[in-house]
């Protein structure tokens, strides 16, 4: 690149501040604190209450043995022994710990997935659930669970995610094709809801005519729940979601410029086609993880990014993505706590709780937007 006469000397000291990280750091610390609190409450509260002190002790032992187990096989046996020694430790290690880890990672993934879709459509009301993407994923996963299990005994969690990913992409492509025809966002949402309903109908049809044996696992999952989380699920979720989060962070610079519209984004040197494809793939991957491992969960994808932006007072993706991930984790951990404990021993589906807290947020957001557009 040839040298230009630069308006600004290299050692210039600006007097204005474009970005203020103080608020971002404060919000991140707040969310991290809330997440820690949520995790602690979640492991100790339940049908069997475990005192926080023994949680810490068992957890410390578990981590110690698990780390030692990497080098020394006898430590792994001791880990197994630790898990089996008491009911408490069994509940902690086999039920509560994987469940809350899954809830936090998938909650974060869902929030980031929603955020990516909102950047894509340049509209804060987009999300994987309202656009029918979750329902598409659910449909393909149901097919897999019903028909594939006849031939294969154990379908791995990775295969489920792959199935959900295919379903997500399928529905996203349909919604995108429609979005080229209709310019208004509200029409797009109506299309998304309709497509989602069609997928739901197909899923119900399959379930109705499927063998009783085939749908044992299905009914629980298809409602959306974090119960039944296994360490296998946690491993898959952590790997894929953290990968997705990292990729989303790397896309934050073009995402920021994309907010000005395609014309400006292209003039700043963004390859629009590649960028849009990346957004769709990433958001589908993240929501596919959630749908495959926990079932469809509503409102987190819309409400959490909005809460995050309101807290941060900016929609800058490089701040909003990590904050939305944390915020989604906090949201889901607390929602899962409520789903699990409030009507114990009956467990609510997770969407029941997320809808109660998420839907009002969305309604308030839409009313505010309407007002600001009229001014």
């Amino acid at each position, binding site marked *: 690149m040839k040298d230009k006469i630069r308006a600004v000397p290299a050692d210039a000291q600006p007097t204005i501040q474009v970005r203020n990280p103080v608020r971002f750091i404060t919000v991140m610390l707040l969310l991290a604190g809330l997440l820690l609190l949520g995790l602690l409450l979640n492991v100790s509260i339940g049908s069997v209450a475990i005192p926080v002190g023994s949680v810490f002790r068992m957890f410390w032992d578990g981590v110690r043995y698990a780390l030692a187990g990497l080098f020394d096989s006898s430590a792994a046996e001791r880990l197994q022994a630790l898990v089996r020694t008491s009911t408490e430790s069994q509940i902690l290690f086999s039920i509560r710990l994987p469940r809350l880890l899954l809830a936090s990672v998938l909650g974060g993934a869902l929030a980031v997935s929603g955020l990516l879709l909102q950047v894509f459509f340049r509209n804060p009301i987009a999300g994987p659930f309202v656009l029918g993407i979750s329902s598409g994923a659910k449909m393909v996963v149901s097919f897999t669970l019903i028909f594939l299990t006849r031939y294969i005994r154990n379908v791995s969690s990775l295969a489920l995610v792959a199935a959900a990913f295919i379903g997500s992409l399928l529905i996203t492509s349909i919604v995108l094709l429609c979005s080229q025809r209709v310019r208004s966002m509200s029409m797009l949402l109506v299309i998304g809801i309709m497509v989602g309903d069609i997928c739901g109908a197909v899923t119900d049809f399959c379930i109705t005519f499927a063998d009783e044996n085939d749908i044992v696992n299905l009914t629980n999952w298809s409602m959306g729940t974090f119960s039944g989380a296994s360490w296998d699920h946690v491993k898959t979720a952590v790997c894929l979601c953290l990968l997705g989060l990292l990729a989303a962070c790397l896309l934050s610079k073009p995402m920021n410029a994309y907010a000005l519209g395609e*014309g400006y984004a292209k003039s700043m040197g963004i390859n629009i086609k590649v960028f849009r494809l990346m957004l769709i793939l990433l958001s589908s991957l993240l929501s596919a993880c959630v749908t495959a491992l926990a079932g469809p969960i509503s409102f987190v994808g819309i409400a959490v990014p909005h809460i995050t932006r309101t807290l941060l007072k900016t929609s800058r993706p490089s701040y909003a993505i990590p904050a939305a991930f944390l915020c989604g984790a906090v949201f889901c951990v607390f929602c899962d706590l409520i789903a699990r404990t409030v009507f114990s021993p009956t467990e609510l589906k997770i969407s029941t709780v997320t809808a109660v807290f998420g839907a009002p947020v969305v309604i308030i957001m839409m009313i505010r937007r309407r007002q600001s557009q009229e001014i």
Partner: protein
Amino acid sequence: MNGYFRTENLAVGYDGNVLIRDICLTLEKGSVLTLIGPNGAGKSTILKTITQHLAALHGTVSVAGQDLASQSPRQLARQMAVMLTDRIRPELTTCAEVVAMGRYPYTNLFGRLTPQDTAAVETALRQVHALELAQQDFSTLSDGQRQRILLARAICQEPDVLVLDEPTAYLDIRHKVELLDILRSMARDKGTTVVMSLHEIDLAAKASDCLLCVRGETVMAFGPPEDVLQSHAVEQLYDMEKGAYNLLFGSVELSRPQGAPQVFVVAGNGCGIPHFRALQRRQVPFAAGILFENDTDCQVARALSEHVICAPAFSSMTSAQFEAAAAAVVRCSAVLDAGAPVGELNRLNGQLLSFAREKGIPVYTRYPESEAVHG
């Protein structure tokens, strides 16, 4: 091969359909080119092809001898910045952030702003007189403020070529002048080559080094404003059947009243213009005289009436002109005395008023009888 900015046999259009062909432009570094022409003529299409938003259907656009189509997006972004007509509404984004997006081609993978980048943002904001808006939310701005912030964003990109699509749209007269002043100073001080489209022909003629008249299959004219805007160029360009465009004043006169003159206006020294326009508003056909050709009254009268009796500048009116005027007066049902001072050279105008009174044609004047000087 000279010229800094060139287009060679450029053909532009959408989807392979050529809209305008054979566009050959040559601009020196630091000059301002303005595209004028009616709505839908293809001004934006040419600009979009120059910025590489649309692929050229034929021919090339080159800057400093380099074909723009062969450059990487990042290279191109460092060379060319745009200001579009797209209405953008990024949410929760401060003006400083919008301007900072102009640094996109200069920042690293994460879009981190160095102090130098921030200083460039500050300089750009100061240049458009909008430093006080830095921390304000972009969505709360007025149209004029938005245009200035978007211009600052383009300036911040430190382009060699700045392309603006109707930058003065939505602006009031003060902001139009300010914006064009900024563009001129960028061209003059930094050697930025400016290519834009404008609706205001008068401003285009004053602010540009070159004009490009866009209409029809090929461009109508290209060159310095004084060459391009010959006698009826504007009326032809915009297909004006009614009304007239005065190149000297850069002002528009509305459609000329049709029919035989009913009123004769004795005018001169600019006193007649308000009367001519008042008659035009009521669509009363009129005659005017005797006017020196260098009188502003003559310019407007000729646009609004076919019956103007003129005298060459700087010499006394002749009896032949008087005869012609007198003949016109007797055909009219009233005479209007615009109140022009009568001196040595236009003595006959005074006689014309006396002649009308003798013939019993009513003479109206806005001025008390004593103030009007009659020779």
